[in-house]
């Protein structure tokens, strides 16, 4: 077996996925073809995932492979090192889960011809981004990924909301790619070495390196959804079909994180300490703002999209901590923070896919995405409700689920901050820790609201009260993901151990092996410090609940009787009088919304004696959209209006313009030299 075998196999898989998308364009219109294509993409993604897992566990097999494609004097370089392998595992696992889900879910698709071909190509594109080992291939795959996902966002293009989402997405994706283009331009320097090896050898000088980091934050951050570049994400992710939303939120944002890690941790070279500060502040702000947006949103899938923004912020806080520690040469602390961030990458891919699958099932069963029209689905869709409860508990960082394990690791990394010598970091890291704790607590509130309004309480519409359970494929994959969320939470040590090649490659060391610690505890630093054991906590809770249930049923009463709702003696007849999504978040809106969003409640009371209804209207002001995006859009509009005159000139004027431009450019070059 040669050392470039995993990468060759991966490329073969990508090529098959691409040809599958061609096949899908042909057979996609038939009812039989759709499940077949999804079966095929499931098999391929699964194979790619297994291949990547093999590569992750055998870091010796990281030889590059050069294909004579692309620019003739460069060729296309591909390589799977441990970092790429880890992200390939996450990506292809998400892809396999979404494909399996879509075997059932895709049957309800009205226009499969607009989804199928792009779906397979999108999966291939994400793989290619992770496989590429030179700037040219990377950017090409990145743009291909953006375009394929854009096509999927536009799958239901008749709806004006989707068209707008697609437009905003395309603009932001162009901005991101542009920033990355400049990044790689700066990285490769005047020599023009576009291979990642050449970039590593040619370390950028200090002012350029800083510029590279900022540009990477813009380029990768806009794709990942960092505030304030997140504006497209809550529009575009929900617009796509649910299995694609799951991939975009759970996986594509991770590809963006890979881009950031690859550039900031690998290609730039040794970091400056204050880079971490920058990333920490941006990440903390993203986490808090993301979850607040999610709390004020009533569209089910947009809540999930905003929660993705929050989780991305969480991951960037981990990465920022790691950069800060690495800048101060604290390798162990940097590894703890980095491992925590990667662990959260994995966990978020699991539970966000699950939550999007569940909301897709709900949307399919009721035709509604508006939480205010749902409710009581735990009775109508019992299996979906169980799986979604697992997902909601995991994303709310409740022990013993996996979300808590990565949150715990991140907090342990925050607690290492006194090592840092810089005062700026010493003061900012605890503050960011507070932001993180706040956003985690708010995320729990957000998912109590999400689950309570959608699955519990009484149905708020006829569609919700007549919904039926989703198909067997969707249920299987949702239950499997919920189980994996629990498993990753109670046995986190094995996943952390699998990441040791990644830290070995980037930091030249690794954390102590977690799976050999007694009782499978999580002890990231040393025995004297903190430990957490998800397995024991899980067993204790189960045992305590079982003991309580047995004792109560054995020795006390087991009698129960059904009766009408009590509600202090006067229950409201109409289900519309229940607490709604809007009213549930009202206290939080009053606490946080007035300051950050200018939330205002207005009550219009009818005059005394009139029979008209009283109205309560809530206005939220999206500060970022209004202060950042609207002025830019307005500026572009004004500029294009002004430049419009240029469209109607004579040929002589055009020629003189061209001549003048040429002269100016030549002058600039002459002066530059």
């Amino acid at each position: 077996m040669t050392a470039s075998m995993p990468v060759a196999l991966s490329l073969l898989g990508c090529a098959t996925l691409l040809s599958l998308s061609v096949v899908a364009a042909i057979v996609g219109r038939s009812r039989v073809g759709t499940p077949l294509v999804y079966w095929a993409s499931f098999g391929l993604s699964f194979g790619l995932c297994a291949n990547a897992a093999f590569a992750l566990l055998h870091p010796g097999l990281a030889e590059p492979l050069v294909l004579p494609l692309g620019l003739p004097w460069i060729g296309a370089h591909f390589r799977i090192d441990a970092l790429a392998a880890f992200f390939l595992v996450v990506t292809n696992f998400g892809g396999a889960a979404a494909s399996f889900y879509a075997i059932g879910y895709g049957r309800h698709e009205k226009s499969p011809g607009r989804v199928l071909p792009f779906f397979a190509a999108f999966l291939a594109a994400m793989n290619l981004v992770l496989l590429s080992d030179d700037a040219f291939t990377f950017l090409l795959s990145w743009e291909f990924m953006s375009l394929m996902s854009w096509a999927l966002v536009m799958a239901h293009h008749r709806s004006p909301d989707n068209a707008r989402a697609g437009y905003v997405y395309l603009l932001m994706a162009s901005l991101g790619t542009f920033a990355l283009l400049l990044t790689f331009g700066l990285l490769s320097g005047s020599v023009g070495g576009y291979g990642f090896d050449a970039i590593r050898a040619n370390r950028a000088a200090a002012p350029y390196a800083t510029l590279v980091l900022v540009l990477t934050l813009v380029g990768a951050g806009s794709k990942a959804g960092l505030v304030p570049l997140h504006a497209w994400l809550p529009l575009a992710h929900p617009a796509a079909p649910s299995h694609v939303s799951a991939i975009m939120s759970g996986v594509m944002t991770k590809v963006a994180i890979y881009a950031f890690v690859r550039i900031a941790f690998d290609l730039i070279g040794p970091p400056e300490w204050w880079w971490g500060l920058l990333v920490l502040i941006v990440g903390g702000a993203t986490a808090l703002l993301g979850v607040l947006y999610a709390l004020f949103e009533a569209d089910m899938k947009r809540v999930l999209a905003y929660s993705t923004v929050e989780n991305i912020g969480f991951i960037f806080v981990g990465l920022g901590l790691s950069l800060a520690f690495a800048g101060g040469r604290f390798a162990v602390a940097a590894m703890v923070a980095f491992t925590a961030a990667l662990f959260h990458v994995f966990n978020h891919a699991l539970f966000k896919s699950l939550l999007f699958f569940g909301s897709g099932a709900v949307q399919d069963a009721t035709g509604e995405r508006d939480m205010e029209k749902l409710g009581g689905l735990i009775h109508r869709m019992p299996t979906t409700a169980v799986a979604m409860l697992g997902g909601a508990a995991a994303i709310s960082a409740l022990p013993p689920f996996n979300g808590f394990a990565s949150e715990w690791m991140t907090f342990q990394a925050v607690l290492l901050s006194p090592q840092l010598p810089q005062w700026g970091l010493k003061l900012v890291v605890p503050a960011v820790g507070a932001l993180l704790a706040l956003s985690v607590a708010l995320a729990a509130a957000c998912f109590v609201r999400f689950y309570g309004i959608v699955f519990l309480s009484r149905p708020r519409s006829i569609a919700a009260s007549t919904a039926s359970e989703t198909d067997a494929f969707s249920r299987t994959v949702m239950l499997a993901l919920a189980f994996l969320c629990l498993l990753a939470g109670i046995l986190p040590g094995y996943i952390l151990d699998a990441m040791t090649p990644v830290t070995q490659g980037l930091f030249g060391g690794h954390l102590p092996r977690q799976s050999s610690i007694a009782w499978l505890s999580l002890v990231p630093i040393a025995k004297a410090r903190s430990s957490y054991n998800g397995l024991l906590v899980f067993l204790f809770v189960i045992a305590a609940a079982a003991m309580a249930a047995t004792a109560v049923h054995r020795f006390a009463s087991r009698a129960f009787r059904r009766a009408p709702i009590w509600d202090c003696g006067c229950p409201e007849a109409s289900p519309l009088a229940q607490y709604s999504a809007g009213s549930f978040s009202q206290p939080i809106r009053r606490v946080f919304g007035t300051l950050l969003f200018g939330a205002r409640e207005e009550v219009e009371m009818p005059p005394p004696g009139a029979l008209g209804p009283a109205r309560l209207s809530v206005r939220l002001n999206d500060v970022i959209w209004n202060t950042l995006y609207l002025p830019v859009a307005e500026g572009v509009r004004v500029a294009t209006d002004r430049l419009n005159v240029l469209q109607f000139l004579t040929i002589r004027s055009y020629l003189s313009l061209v001549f003048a431009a040429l002269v100016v450019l030549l002058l600039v070059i002459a002066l530059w030299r």
Partner: protein
Amino acid sequence: MALIRDLLVQSAEMILVLALSPFVTGLIRKVKARLVRRVGPPLIQPYRELVRLLRKEVVLADNASWLFRAAPYLVFATTWVAAALVPTFAVGLLFSWSADLIAIVALLGSARFFLALAGMDVGTSFGGIGASREVMIASLAEPAMIMIIFSLALLAGSTQLSTIAAYMLSPHVGLRVTLAMALVALIMVGIAENARIPVDNPATHLELTMVHEAMVLEYSGRHLALIELSAALKLLLYLSLIACVFVPWGLAPPGATWSAYTLGAASYVAKLTAGAAALAVFETAIAKMRVFRVPSFLGAALMLGLLGTLFLFVSRGGL
């Protein structure tokens, strides 16, 4: 042999917290009654109430789901496990390393998550208002608690409660501004988390300012008994936490003799009594605040925690 002994001590602690928690509730009620010159119920009244509720049948709303029936057991189990992981009369128990302070707080978060969901299950406005306010309060109390943990952990070098208690007993603690701030913040968080006056009133049932009681309004019989017991356990947990971190004297070290354990247990009961009496005096002396004043109250706790953490750097010139 040592393992069996450790197991015994650990089980003794689990049973102790369970058995003592209604006593603490009863004690607070008694002291509060005496302070306003009433006779008050006997100390064993909470036990009687639990037994009475356990014997009664459960009346379930027609549309209550399985989650509504499972939630009391889950809430009870998570709270009990969390309470048993806080050192009460001894440190370094067999399983004390399986969860640190962050995990204990998160376990309480799990309990609240399920209770808030159960409050929303039947679809009444009381359940909704209770759940909505509970998560609002928690969304501020939890970060405040995390900041307290940060300042304690930065001092003691660990988030493990046994280590923190050992550090507080060691001679190089001294009087610190940070510790004072953490203590005040911890008391504030404890009051909010346990739905005590001035944040919430555990004695009322039908008042629009209520939070916790509104959320559990639909519960009856054995389910209600479990929820009341979990509330009592949570109060005991916070009292033990304050006692363990700020008054750690008397805690038996790992592998101590039986007499040390007895001494630890006696001092623990004394600390609980003092804490309960202090809480009763505080509650009698203060009025309930409006629900939208609670964020400022908890915001102050959060700021105290954060300031305490930052003070550590200032006072020590960087650990």
